[in-house]
């Protein structure tokens, strides 16, 4: 299939203007250097043919939208109002480039500004950028910000941070050699006095995730109080949907808030594209990476939006930039902006509460199964760890035979947790799905 509109007469006309016999002549200088014709022949297809073939491939995934999924662990299935997809499908948004020409990019630029406002509101912070790749890379960039700002190398990390986020943090900071200090969780939460003891004169940042990887609600305010008079920056990673109920990073006195914005109207998409949220206080604005839109005016006083503070960025500053990031996840940021506009303050709080309600219903039912109990007493939002009497991997396999995606077996990340499963229930989980799960669990357990 081809999307090239040139007819043979068009090609002939262009070649004639150039005085060339054929298209191949345009590549003579390349051919003089490189042996060509070494590219393997991959077949092409018509749209109809390919659609048929891909239908067979797609079916190998099952119908994820029709199979109950009790798995979160950093990616969450939430209801997406139909209008969100309508808005992000507009070609004027989807097929635009970075808004370098502001006069014909006011749509994208104003969405950036509205998005920044909503992220500030969710996080309780003063400024936000127009998004990073995902939550994990936003956290990594936030740690680099804190290390630059404090000129220190110590990074105190909650042992209940998502292990993939920690892996990304390690990758991004490999060459600046942070000195990591890990605070092990006790009873599924990060003890605030252990955080206090871990801070010293070398500490650049304290990293806490709320709810943490076990789903537990962290003592974010207590940790913030310990850090209030310390030069180290307090980095709080928040699950945005939880912020309808849970304390915002700003209220917990965080200096930098990050989060995975996928739950805000973006499909699970087998891992991406997602949406990195990053917000901070005005004091740290100059160290913040990524695009930022600002409001201004034209010569006639009309309000408009531009990308601003670009002196931080790679295309101006090159090797002295705050980051090498050169894009944002704009279309995902648009989805989140539309999602939050549609939900409104009431709807947002309702979704948050529904998650809490459904997850607690599920936890109650699972904890009463024989040999099962909640691993921790800590409060949780929509995710919790269940102790099983058998290996979680076996339960996962049995449940999938019933067409259910179980909670996540934690032995995958921590061998000593092989009998634990991390369950999640969002507003998408129905009463019927819980019944189905419980029945299947009763079968699967000894």
């Amino acid at each position, binding site marked *: 299939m081809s999307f090239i509109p040139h007819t043979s007469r068009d090609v002939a006309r262009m070649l004639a203007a150039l005085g060339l016999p054929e298209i191949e002549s345009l590549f003579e200088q390349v051919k003089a250097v490189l042996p060509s014709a070494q590219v393997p022949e*991959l077949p092409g297809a018509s749209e109809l043919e390919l659609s048929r073939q891909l239908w067979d491939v797609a079916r190998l995934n099952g119908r994820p939208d029709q199979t109950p999924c009790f798995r979160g662990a950093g990616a969450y299935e939430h209801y997406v109002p139909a209008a969100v997809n309508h808005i992000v499908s507009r070609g004027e948004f989807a097929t635009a480039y970075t808004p370098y020409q*502001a006069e*014909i990019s006011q749509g994208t630029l104003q969405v950036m500004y509205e998005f920044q406002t909503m992220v500030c509101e969710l996080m309780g912070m003063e400024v936000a950028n127009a998004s990073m*790749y995902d939550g994990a890379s936003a956290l990594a960039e936030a740690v680099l910000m804190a290390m630059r700002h404090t000129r220190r190398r110590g990074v105190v990390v909650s042992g209940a941070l998502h292990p993939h986020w920690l892996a990304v943090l390690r990758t991004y900071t490999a*060459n*600046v050699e942070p000195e990591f200090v890990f605070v092990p969780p006790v009873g599924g939460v990060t003890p605030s006095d252990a955080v206090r003891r871990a801070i010293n004169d070398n500490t650049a940042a304290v990293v806490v995730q709320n709810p943490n990887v076990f789903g537990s609600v962290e003592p974010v305010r207590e940790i913030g109080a310990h850090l209030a008079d310390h030069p180290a920056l307090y980095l709080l990673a928040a699950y945005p949907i939880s912020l309808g109920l849970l304390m915002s990073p700003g209220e917990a006195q965080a200096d930098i808030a990050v989060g995975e914005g996928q739950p805000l109207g973006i499909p699970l998409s087998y891992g991406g594209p997602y949406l990195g949220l990053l917000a901070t206080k005005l004091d740290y604005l100059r160290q913040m990476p990524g695009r930022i839109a600002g409001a201004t005016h034209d010569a006639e006083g009309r309000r408009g939006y531009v990308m601003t503070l670009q002196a931080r960025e*790679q*295309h101006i500053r090159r090797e002295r930039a705050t980051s090498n990031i050169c894009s944002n996840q704009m279309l995902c940021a648009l989805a989140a902006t539309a999602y939050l506009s549609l939900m409104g303050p009431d709807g947002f709080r309702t979704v948050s509460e529904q998650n809490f309600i459904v997850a607690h219903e599920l936890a109650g039912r699972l904890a009463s199964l024989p040999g099962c109990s909640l691993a921790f007493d800590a409060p949780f939002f929509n995710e919790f760890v269940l102790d099983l009497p058998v290996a979680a991997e076996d339960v996962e396999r049995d449940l999938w035979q019933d067409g259910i995606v179980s909670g996540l077996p934690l032995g995958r990340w921590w061998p000593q947790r092989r009998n634990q499963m991390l369950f999640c229930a969002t507003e998408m989980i129905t009463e019927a799905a819980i019944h189905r799960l419980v029945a299947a669990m009763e079968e699967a357990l000894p």
Partner: protein
Amino acid sequence: MTADTIFEKGKTGRKTLYVAAQEQQPSLFDQLPVGARRRRPPALPEVTEGEVVRHYTNLARKNWGVDVGFYPLGSCTMKYNPRLPEAIAAWPEFCAAHPLRPVRAAQGWLRVLHDTERMLSELCGMARFTLQPAAGAQGELCGMLMVRRYHAERGDPRNVVIVPDSAHGTNPATAALAGFDVVTCPSSPSGLVDLDKLRRLLSDKVAAIMLTNPNTLGLFERDIQEICRLVHEAGGMAYYDGANFNALVGRFRPGEMGFDVVHLNLHKTFGTPHGGGGPGSGPVGVVDKLEPFLPTPLVRKGPDGFEIDDNRPHTIGRLNAFGGNALIVLRAYVYLRLLGTSGLRDVSGAAVLAANYLKHRLTTSYQPSHPGPCMHEFVLTATQQKADGVRALDIAKRLIDLGFHPPTIYFPLTVPEALMIEPTETETLETLDAFAEAMLQIAREAEESPHLLHAAPQSTPVGRLDEVAAAKALDLRWRPGGAEGGDADASPRAPGGRPTTRS
């Protein structure tokens, strides 16, 4: 159309219900300690669905996209984005899949990722690819971290990366982020890497050279094999920035040029939409000796189907929480399967033909940065027009009034008053001709009525915006009472315009 934000459209109490509130025992929330609860709710807009759709539809109408018209932004490959990849990306079998699904429940996804990796490896002459990087810049970081690890594990740590002066800004920024010192290699008068100067920069400290080929001037680096040979001889690696791969795709391979590591921009060469600045995808290919360092996870074929390979002792680690921008990779996979190698060969052929034709038509009135044939893009310099008091920025703004998105301006930095034009393969000859006519008209206007250019654009919802004011009186979020105060000491950019590059 007004510039009112969504926040100004709200009214207390207005709402649309998407998720019904379930009945609950009030005591349930007692399980959440008071100290852990939110105090001030987020001030989100209170609007109905109709208002939201109308608001964002009106904002969409203030935006230019490939769907709207010609978008000849150099180095960005703003080609038509086919719709089948979009449709398939919306199939729930793909888009509703959780990234941590059991592998037996994700065999379709793993097959797509596995086959995309194989196709990209074959198109680039690389041993393997990682699909994890979320954008070109993250791909660069991935590649340079692998280069760093390679040298370190050989007990030969190296700290210098050579970047030509015509390179994209991300190249030096990435090298710095990966912990290298950046040394700039000046171009020769012909716009290519100066071999003598390169020789003088090479040493046992050099970890790699980062190159785009064709380079940002749209010129093919003829000495590419010699460049790679020299770098290899000095013990360094050759990194290929695939931003300009649209010029060569289906015909030539970075592997044969001598490159060791390659990143591609799926949102450029492989037809996925740019999304207003993202999400994109920047897969990275490597030769065998870098393969152990690829980020995790990778997909491999096992005896019982496809598997996730997470256990790689030499890996640089993870770049994203999950496997990268899978839904973008899927779109590129569909594009690749539609076109096949022969379709891709037609892509590079038509892209290079269109660029040369347009260059030929425009050089009657504009001076090219370099004479002779170009690849998929070319750079003009508005120095002649500048003598009449008209700058590249003015030409760009006037183009908007004539119904075109402007080219990239003030980039590459090595060309004064640069206009960098990339027509791509998907524009009709009529569009190319109409654009050429507009550019020629502007060249005449620059001499006869320059005020038209200085006052442009007139046809847009706003005129030229005050960027200095934006950076000084920072207004970065909406507030009920208007902007917050705060002075900024942002260093102003080059007067009158900023370099525009790609992502």
